[in-house]
């Protein structure tokens, strides 16, 4: 009794503290929206760390409340983002000195691309916490790490200083090792190791590029600004010679590309996603893979536009492999989670193809696809997790006719599947259509090859739906299984609503994204 009161008191106190904190910020002259966003999840991480494991429910409630606060803040960020003529590209800017000796400062700001990604992250972390409601093994560390990870993600999408960027990037990536290694399933140690080593290799490659950009600020800086700095703004004003851009762009592209599942450096992704616990798969495929694509745009294309123009036509060939090869691989899988994992490889190929087009339709489509795929694949992994929880298997052959017993899960699975195969009315279509338009303008044959991917996608998605959920219930073990719980339904409803809303009325989100894409393209067209 006493412990219950104490625990609920903690939740109430946490809520009150959160409200007070946000209120205080709002009352001030300057609202540090982005820092607040990160502070919310970071604080939650610390608080959760302080609660003993036996108060499992309070850990979950605290996490959910703070994740919800993060969601609300990310929505506020998107709603307040200014669009139209004459507004600055980067908004909600924050700046304070940090390590002057190195030229590193705490600089944060978001453009339209960043805002879309922050919104995606807010949605996925809240739904991810809801999807983890049944985690019973060491919940304290699980939720603390999850919230820490997402703090890093929020930071990367807003970083305007390479040092800060790299720091948050590692904060976002490294907890994965523990989360998969401890809470995972199957060959989890192998998968965790593989994933981490791969991503560190990516980090090493991009670090080479980062250092080149950093030292370049002194050499090639704008007149009167020959100082070493990590500031992205200064780098955007630095005239890196074409040779330097051409040399270092592949480091940046491949470094970030590894995280986006760029073929042939993608094999960490199926293993990692399949072994990871539900919420981690959601976050990883939903958000972390987008860090890679985001980095390619923010660092690679924006800072080395000449390098991008030179290299991206070559790299676009690999994205075709991503799309079609990923889809065919997905078709051959027997484990449901591997199907979804390979579908991510295929869909991220569409994102990178969109970036490679370097035109308006393609790049807008790529960013929208990042958002759309994040929601969709988050939903997929949540659904696989929920199904596994009931059936204790992920083998497609052992399913069959589950729709009769779990109509809610089957319905949501259908929605996610339809979004995956690019059905109009759901967000995937708008994004893919834009990418294909862009790709068509770049190269018709390549566009046609990429479009074959959507037929294969339809084939494997519908095959999975048919084998798992439709037809007569064949396995007698499932006579007693139940449908999704209310918390799970809430999680799925949020994700499905976003898919439908963006699919039917993409105007608002596209206009935000476009306000960020426009300046990037202007840099590419202007040759830096």
């Amino acid at each position, binding site marked *: 009794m006493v412990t219950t009161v104490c625990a609920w008191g903690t939740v109430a106190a946490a809520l009150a503290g959160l409200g007070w904190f946000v209120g205080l910020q709002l009352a001030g002259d300057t609202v540090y929206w982005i820092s607040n966003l990160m502070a919310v999840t970071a604080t939650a991480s610390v608080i959760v760390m302080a609660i003993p494991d036996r108060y499992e429910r309070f850990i979950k409630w605290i996490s959910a409340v703070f994740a919800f606060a993060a969601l609300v803040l990310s929505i506020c960020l998107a709603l307040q983002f200014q669009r139209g003529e004459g507004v600055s590209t980067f908004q909600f800017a924050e700046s304070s000195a940090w390590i002057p000796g190195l030229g590193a400062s705490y600089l944060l700001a978001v453009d339209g691309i960043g805002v879309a990604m922050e919104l995606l992250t807010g949605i996925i972390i809240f739904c991810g916490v809801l999807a983890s409601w049944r985690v019973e093994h060491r919940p304290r560390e699980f939720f603390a790490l999850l919230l820490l990870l997402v703090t890093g993600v929020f930071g990367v999408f807003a970083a305007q200083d390479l040092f800060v960027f790299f720091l948050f990037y590692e904060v976002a990536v490294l907890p994965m090792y523990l989360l998969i290694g401890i809470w995972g399933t199957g060959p989890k140690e192998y998968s965790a190791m593989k994933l981490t080593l791969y991503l560190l290799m990516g980090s090493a490659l991009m670090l080479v590029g980062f250092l080149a950009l950093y030292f370049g600020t002194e050499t090639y800086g704008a007149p009167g600004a020959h100082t070493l700095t990590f500031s992205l703004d200064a780098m955007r004003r630095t005239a890196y010679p074409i040779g330097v851009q051409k040399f270092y762009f592949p480091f940046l592209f491949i470094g970030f590309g590894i995280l986006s599942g760029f073929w042939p450096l993608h094999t960490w992704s199926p293993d990692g996603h399949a072994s990871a616990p539900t919420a981690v798969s959601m976050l990883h495929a939903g958000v972390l893979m987008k860090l890679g694509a985001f980095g390619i745009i923010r660092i690679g294309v924006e800072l080395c536009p000449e390098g991008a123009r030179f290299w991206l036509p070559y790299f676009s060939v690999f994205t075709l492999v991503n799309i079609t090869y990923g889809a065919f691989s997905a078709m051959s899988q027997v484990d449901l989670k591997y199907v979804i994992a390979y579908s991510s490889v295929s869909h991220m190929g569409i994102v990178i193809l969109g970036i490679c087009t370097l035109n308006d339709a393609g790049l807008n489509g790529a960013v929208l696809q990042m958002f759309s795929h994040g929601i969709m694949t988050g939903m997929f992994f949540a659904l696989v997790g929920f199904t596994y929880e009931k059936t204790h298997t992920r083998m497609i052959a052992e399913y069959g006719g589950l729709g009769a017993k779990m109509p809610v899960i089957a319905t949501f699975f259908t929605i996610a599947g339809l979004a995956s195969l690019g059905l109009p009315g759901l967000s995937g279509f708008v994004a893919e259509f834009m990418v294909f338009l862009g790709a068509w303008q770049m190269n*018709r044959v390549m566009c046609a090859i990429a479009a074959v991917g959507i037929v294969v996608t339809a084939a494997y998605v519908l*095959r999975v739906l048919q084998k798992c959920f*439709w*037809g007569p219930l064949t396995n007698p073990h499932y006579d007693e299984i139940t449908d999704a719980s209310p918390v799970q339904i809430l999680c799925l409803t949020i994700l499905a609503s976003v898919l439908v809303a963006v699919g039917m009325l*993409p*105007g608002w989100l*596209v206009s935000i994204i*476009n306000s960020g894409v426009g300046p990037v393209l202007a840099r590419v067209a202007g040759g830096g």
Partner: protein
Amino acid sequence: MVAAGAVAVSALAAAPAITVVEAPGYLWLIPGLPLAAFVVIGLVTRPWRLLSAAVGVVAIGLSFVFSLWTFIAQVKAGPDTVLASSLPWFTTGTLHPMVGLQVDPLSAVMLLVVTTVALMVQIYSLGYMAGEAGLSRFYAYLSLFCAAMLGLVMAHSFVQLFVCWELVGLCSYLLIGFWYDRDAPAFAAKKAFVTTRLGDLGFLLGVLLVCTTAGSFEFSEVQAKIGAGLLDPRTLTLAALLLFCGAVGKSAQVPLHVWLPDAMEGPTPVSALIHAATMVAAGVYMVARFSFIFHGSPDAMATVAVVGGITAFFAATIALVQDDIKRVLAYSTISQLGYMMLALGAGSVTAGMFHLFTHAFFKALLFLGAGAVIHAVHTNDMWEMGGLRKSMPWTFWTFAIGSLALAGFFPFSGFFSKDEILVHVLAYSPALFALAVAGSFCTAFYMGRVVFVAFLGTARGGGAAHAHEAPLVMRGPLVILAGLSIAVGWWVWDFARFVYAGEMEEVHIHLGLAAATQLVPLAGLLLAAGMYVYRSPDPEALSNRFPGVYNLLRHRYYVDEAYDWLIDRVVMRFSAGIGWFDRNVVDGAVNGVAWLARQTGAQLRYLQTGRVQHYAAAVFGGVALLLLLARLGGAR
């Protein structure tokens, strides 16, 4: 640019002036009401089955009223007036797709067809699906289908047409698989979606080609650019062929026809609405709508005609030997869609669209009649029926009217539309004309066979012996559709002055040709009567005498088998190969690197022996080596 502009002006001056009028607001209600019904049923009335059904019926009823209103307004305004209205969908730097509605004669006719048949089917389903637990779901899907189909026929842009095109495909998928806890519907639904998706790949690429070349998504702007000669003939041919791929999939033309017979696994009202009257006709509508592209390319037109002609004949021959009453009708639908394509390919939008118009009513009638029979006898196999004329007179007579209309007998509506097609095809290509006439012989034969076997004679099964006439709610739509199947043919002269592409066509009923072509179905009908009423010639003796032909037809020319082989042996093996490659070659390389690192570490660790002597030896050796190298370097 200046020259192009001048051409555009002269081209516009040559064509009859099109007046664009801002559409009245109620136009949005035509697709909007069924869409609202879908949302309301899904979110609110789902637990109350009958209320959901009522919501669906009322919504489509109102849609029908507004469509009729629009149609009358369009007739009054004349064929050169277009009602249009649009709103922005989303905007980027270069893209400005709009959501809009547009009504011209073509759309107005389609509106009438879709809402009439949909209303009849939804009323009929109140009886047919009465005992169904998933009635709310059924009406939700039907409403969504109506919304998408109405959005499709009123689309004003390529993007919107594609969006609605895919959405009707989704509804088809959901409704074929309506009884999801059975194997066959689940499989058929998947097959239908994936097969049409294959065609839609071409459609998508065609849309991309047209829109990027013309720089606009909207029909009117693209049409103006093509009229001005801004698209070269090769591009037009490629675009038309790519777009036609979509029509081949949706309208079940050879070789993508395999999904439609399997789609009969869905509830029969769905077969009537989606897989006979409306959605499958969307491909025909699309080709007619894009006549401004197709007419620019004789090669593409020839392709459309040949594919249509082959389909018309080929599907009709398969229908000759089917036992399942719905499958006979399904192959018949494929065949009739082939006739429509043939007419379009021969250059007559009027003939193709008029056949679409008449076919919608009599084929919906036939499916609903078949549904009434299946409802009564609980089997699809016509050999287990028989003698239903007595127990189900209303169904029999309406079914007979539908059959005569389908076979193309005067004075039923099918006569007028088929005659129009034959006149145009004869002028276009005698070979295709021969195919079409042969097809019409088969049509009369297989419909005669169904009527004689299912309705005449004596009951051959327990279900047939105890069959009861369908309830009023099912009979009513049958009677109305039968009335339409008789009446609408006489509209042919006014139709030709209303729906056309390019130049208006005058209708001449060619008396000699009409008389000659009436003999062909008559012969088919008499042969069917001889075989299935008088057993002379005996059908079994015939099939034993020509086993090769019989088996070829029974196995539907082995096309399904060929696809199965292709999927199992080629596609699945290829994907398994890719999966193996990824696990073993790509990942093998990754694990190989890891193994190399581990092995290197494992070998190198022996260097760390912990003995000072060894370390000292290494240090001295190293220094000696360095000195040696320095010495050699210095010497050079």
